[in-house]
């Protein structure tokens, strides 16, 4: 493996169940507010209406793009503005787009398929909308990006993987700038799917708590602007918000939906992230855990963190956002960088009662620190594990 090479992050954007932009999201996190509610974007006939975290993005009657892509555009616009880039200024640069999603790449529309199954000839508009809405392609089109374009569909680790791979593009000299992140929308398919798997909590999610019952779905987008050192030197703009220091990923090869009980894949990913960033555990200020609130996920993560990083405080931010699937890793990377800048992390929302089965517990109050690096980790269906090592930027 090649040695460490930090990649600068110059802009951040976020739109999710915690707020319409990063500033709103951070206020939600540090005010310890939680905003889950019954879904309003779609109907459901479940006896229990599992709460969700809906992003404050209006739903037009005739949307030309999928909500996932509109969330991505919202967060990307914020991130580019944060970095001081206009669309015009990007022209002539090698700009790549690397984006994670789950629902955003699914070729299905329930209404369309229902009509087809009923034997009618549904109009093609919903399918055309899907074909027009590939998330990475949408951003490339909107911002006239001429570089590589990749939509990663690694389920719930997609957003983390996208940031890690985007950093590789910069290091390899493929791009001057990469829009990296993740986006995903709430919808009936995932709502019914996770309900069928019986891993949803009928109450607000309680990551790492003794009484946790499962996840709450969320939606949103997190976006980072990554820039090459050469571009930074040529066109110095805003202060660097932080750095992607390293990345690790590994597959459990164990089960389609459950993590490896000993977290073997997560441990490999975590070690690779530390090795690629040349960070020692003692240098970590905190870990932003995946922390979905499902019994299996939280048990495995707690054990792995206790074994490998026993002294490092950790939290889950899903108590504020719900689980935004393919966007989760990117949203959490944005939060991790913002918290590194502020030198504090919020309480791990939803955690109240320690679980004797879990050897480690998250922070219960806003916690300050002096460290300059942190990890953000994601676990996913398919046994995927991805860990980002992130560094503090300039104040």
């Amino acid at each position, binding site marked *: 493996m090649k040695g460490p090479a930090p990649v600068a992050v110059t802009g951040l954007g976020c739109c999710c169940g915690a707020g319409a932009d990063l500033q709103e999201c951070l206020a939600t996190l540090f005010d310890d507010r939680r905003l889950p509610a019954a879904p309003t974007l779609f109907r459901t006939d479940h006896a229990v209406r599992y709460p969700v975290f809906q992003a404050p993005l209006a739903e037009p009657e005739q949307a030309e793009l999928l909500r996932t892509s509109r969330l991505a555009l919202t967060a990307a616009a914020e991130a580019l503005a944060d970095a001081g880039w206009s669309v015009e200024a990007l022209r002539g640069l090698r700009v790549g787009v690397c984006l994670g999603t789950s629902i955003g790449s699914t070729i*299905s529309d329930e209404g369309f398929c229902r009509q087809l199954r009923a034997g009618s000839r549904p109009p093609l508009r919903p399918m055309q909308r899907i074909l027009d809405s590939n998330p990475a392609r949408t951003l*490339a089109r909107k911002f006239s990006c*001429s570089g590589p374009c990749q939509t990663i569909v690694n389920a719930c680790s997609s957003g983390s993987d996208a940031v890690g791979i985007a950093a590789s593009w910069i290091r390899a000299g493929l791009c001057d700038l990469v829009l990296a992140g993740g986006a995903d929308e709430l919808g*009936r*398919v995932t709502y019914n*799917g996770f*309900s069928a798997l019986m891993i949803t909590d009928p109450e607000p999610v309680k990551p790492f708590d003794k009484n946790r019952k499962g996840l709450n779905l969320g939606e949103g987008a997190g976006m980072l602007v990554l820039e090459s050192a050469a571009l930074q030197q040529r066109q110095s703009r805003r202060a660097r918000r932080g750095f992607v220091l390293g990345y690790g990923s*590994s597959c459990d090869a164990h089960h389609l*939906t459950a993590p490896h009980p000993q977290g073997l894949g997560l441990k490999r990913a975590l070690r690779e992230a530390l090795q690629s960033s040349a960070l020692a555990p003692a240098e970590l200020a905190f870990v932003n855990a995946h922390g979905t609130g499902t019994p299996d996920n939280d048990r495995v993560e707690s054990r792995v963190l206790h074994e490998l990083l026993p002294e490092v405080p950790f939290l889950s931010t899903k108590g504020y956002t719900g689980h935004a699937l393919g966007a989760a890793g990117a949203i959490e990377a944005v939060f991790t960088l913002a918290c590194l800048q502020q030198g504090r992390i919020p309480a791990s929302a939803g955690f109240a009662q320690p679980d004797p089965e879990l050897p480690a517990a998250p922070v219960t109050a806003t916690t300050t620190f002096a460290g300059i690096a942190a990890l953000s980790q994601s676990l996913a269906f398919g046994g995927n594990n991805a860990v980002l090592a992130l560094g503090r930027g300039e104040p």
Partner: protein
Amino acid sequence: MKCDLAIAGLGPVGAFGCGREALLAALADGRSPVGTTSLATPAGPVELPAFLADTASLERFVARRELRRIDHFSRMALLGAFLALEDAGMLGMERSRLGLVIASGYGAMRTTFTFLDSVFSGGDALASPTPFSNSVHNAAAAHVSMLLRAIGPSLTVSQFEMSVPSALLSAALWLVEERVDAVLFGGVDECGELLHYCWQRFFPAAGEARMQPLDFQRQSAVAGEGAAFMVLTRAADTIRPYARIRQVAQGNGAGVQPPLPQDAVLFLGADGHHRCGAAYGGLPAAAALAAYAPLYGSLPVGPAFDLTLAALSCRQGRLFPGPPGSCRGFDGAGETLAGRSICCLKYGSEGDYGLIRVES
């Protein structure tokens, strides 16, 4: 991105059959069998020609009972993966440093529809968990990882017709960065009811069973399904590879054109869709080019098949004639490659492109 990667094993699965020899036989015949898919409508079944893949031979590698809950999409990927590893002589290898990268334009569409069916028939409360978990885009990668015990990094990319060049970029970087020692790389897509319906509505003239990919103005695409997998390694570590991948490039619109070497032979991703035809029509008239889609059909991951064919050409040092009307600038009948590189070139519908350059 300039690189020096080796293609060490091939695992193609399609209407032509499965494995390298089946593809070579189809090349020699100049054709693959065309089947039909059927869509039930109130006016009776509507049939469309399609290049369909059979995965029965997967049982050579995996016990039938282990395949019970694995759908057609993942079976195609599994078969391609096993064949590629077998071809590379790596079936028995230790797999902790094996990466897995899968490209798919549409994912497991049939299983997604099956999941929706469970909601249509039983309501929200009776949604079925098995098709839901198998409909996730990386389900094929998960099955491949589990059955091969491949614990390295795993990546699934879905970028419609640019899925293969985009995913290959990541596979190449993993090898260059020395994150892994080998990558099992493949593309997979499937036909199904939903695709069938969209196909006949988007392309009302569809119905011909003969593709004419070099007639760029004509809509002659025939839907296809299959998987094309390969084992990639660093060239310096590989003895007698099929071919070396020297460049992977991807660009998007904005008037950016791919960097084409002057004497390269072009394997076009042209697959009978006139929407993309204009871009191919702009290539130099003197260019030696071929389009092999009539062997595997029109599917988003077609460039994975083109890369497979390029690897076979490099191994044999000659160009294959392919189906009638699919070559230009060379007759193909035994014409040697003579040191030329092969560029697999795919254009999207919005000026986007993917380019993979290979050499012997």
